[in-house]
């Protein structure tokens, strides 16, 4: 490697490699003791054995800092930063092969106002008028600008909150142990994976050419965790009756929300106003939408009833 060779050859000749070493700057600390005027161009280190001016790694005027005058630290820092850059590129390239990071970033572009509105919408969707996802020059708008867009922030936060709440509920009933948290988490995760896979399979079989990706479906099936949290919380506060009342309320709200959100995406619209046509092609899609919506209360009940006794 160039650095090691240069090191053993001439420890007196220092050359900060890498990004733009500034030449002749006011933070030059020592007089130039190398023979002859140094050539003023960066790079080409093995071909220029004649000295370079000693200069610190110019970090905006840290002139008195002893670390940056040390040549070994200079080179090591430059080398380390270039290695870190290479490592970062490699890791991001490898991750990009499996999960598209840009698409994932779209789902996490939220802000507080969106989260508040979306939570209110999940619990009371009956007064919302316009359910279409707005587009901005052929790509869907981020959740920051459109309350109808699905996001993955609320489902992931709700999932974690649900696990914590389940642990607390079991602790109140003196049935807690640390393994319970792991079992609860993996059970909920497995059910979510099963649901997303079943939905993807059924959409493939019916050849729905919609823009619903796996992440969208993950987002829509993750919204039930909000309902689960409310149900468990009211079950803890108000006992068994509160649990069933909250279960009924969140089930209805969630079913309405899912049907209205997925209707636009799955069902084929025939006329220009977007009225859903009732031909045979749509019948199966209607069944799929209703089955998805009906599956949510089942899951809410299945994953929470053992927490309320």
């Amino acid at each position, binding site marked *: 490697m160039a650095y090691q060779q240069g090191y053993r050859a001439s420890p007196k000749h220092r050359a900060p490699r890498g990004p733009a070493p500034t030449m002749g700057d006011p933070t030059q600390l020592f007089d130039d003791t190398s023979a002859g005027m140094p050539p003023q161009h960066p790079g080409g280190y093995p071909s220029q054995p004649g000295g370079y001016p000693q200069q610190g790694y110019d970090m905006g005027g840290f002139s008195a800092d002893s670390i940056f005058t040390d040549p070994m630290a200079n080179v090591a820092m430059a080398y380390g930063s270039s290695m870190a850059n290479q490592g970062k590129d490699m890791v991001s390239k490898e991750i990009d092969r499996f999960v598209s990071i840009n698409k994932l970033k779209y789902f996490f572009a939220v802000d507080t106002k969106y989260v508040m509105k979306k939570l209110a919408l999940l619990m009371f969707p009956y007064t919302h008028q316009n359910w279409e996802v707005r587009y901005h020059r052929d790509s869907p708008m981020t959740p920051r600008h459109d309350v109808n867009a699905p996001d993955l922030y609320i489902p992931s936060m709700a999932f974690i909150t649900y696990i914590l709440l389940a642990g607390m509920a079991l602790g109140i009933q003196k049935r807690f142990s640390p393994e319970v948290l792991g079992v609860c988490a*993996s*059970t909920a995760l*497995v059910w979510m994976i099963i649901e997303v896979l079943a939905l993807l399979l059924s959409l493939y*079989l*019916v*050849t729905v050419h919609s823009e619903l990706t796996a992440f969208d479906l993950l987002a829509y099936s993750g919204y039930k965790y909000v309902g689960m949290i409310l149900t468990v919380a009211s079950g803890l506060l108000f006992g068994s009756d509160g649990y069933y009342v909250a279960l009924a309320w969140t089930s209805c709200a969630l079913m309405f929300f899912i049907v209205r959100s997925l209707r636009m995406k799955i069902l084929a619209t025939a006329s220009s106003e977007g009225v859903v046509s009732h031909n045979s092609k749509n019948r199966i899609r209607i069944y799929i939408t209703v089955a998805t919506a009906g599956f949510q209360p089942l899951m809410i009940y299945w994953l929470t009833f053992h927490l309320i006794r």
Partner: protein
Amino acid sequence: MAFTLYSLIQAAILCVNAVAVLHEERFLSKIGWGADHGIGGFGDEPGIKSQLMNLVRSVRTVMRVPLIIVNTVAIVLLLLFG
């Protein structure tokens, strides 16, 4: 019902094995689910049955070799760790 991720993997392996075991000419053609039945109409869109047959055939083609590897690994793990 306590699910772990490992039980999900086991269920997935069993399901994919079941799909890969369906033999083309001995079984599927006999019940009218062969691949030659499905390539019929290139009409407006293929029906559910032809999509399903396509899916079965593609799973069989793609997963044949990885299934050998995954099944061997699963058998070894089950023998060692029960």
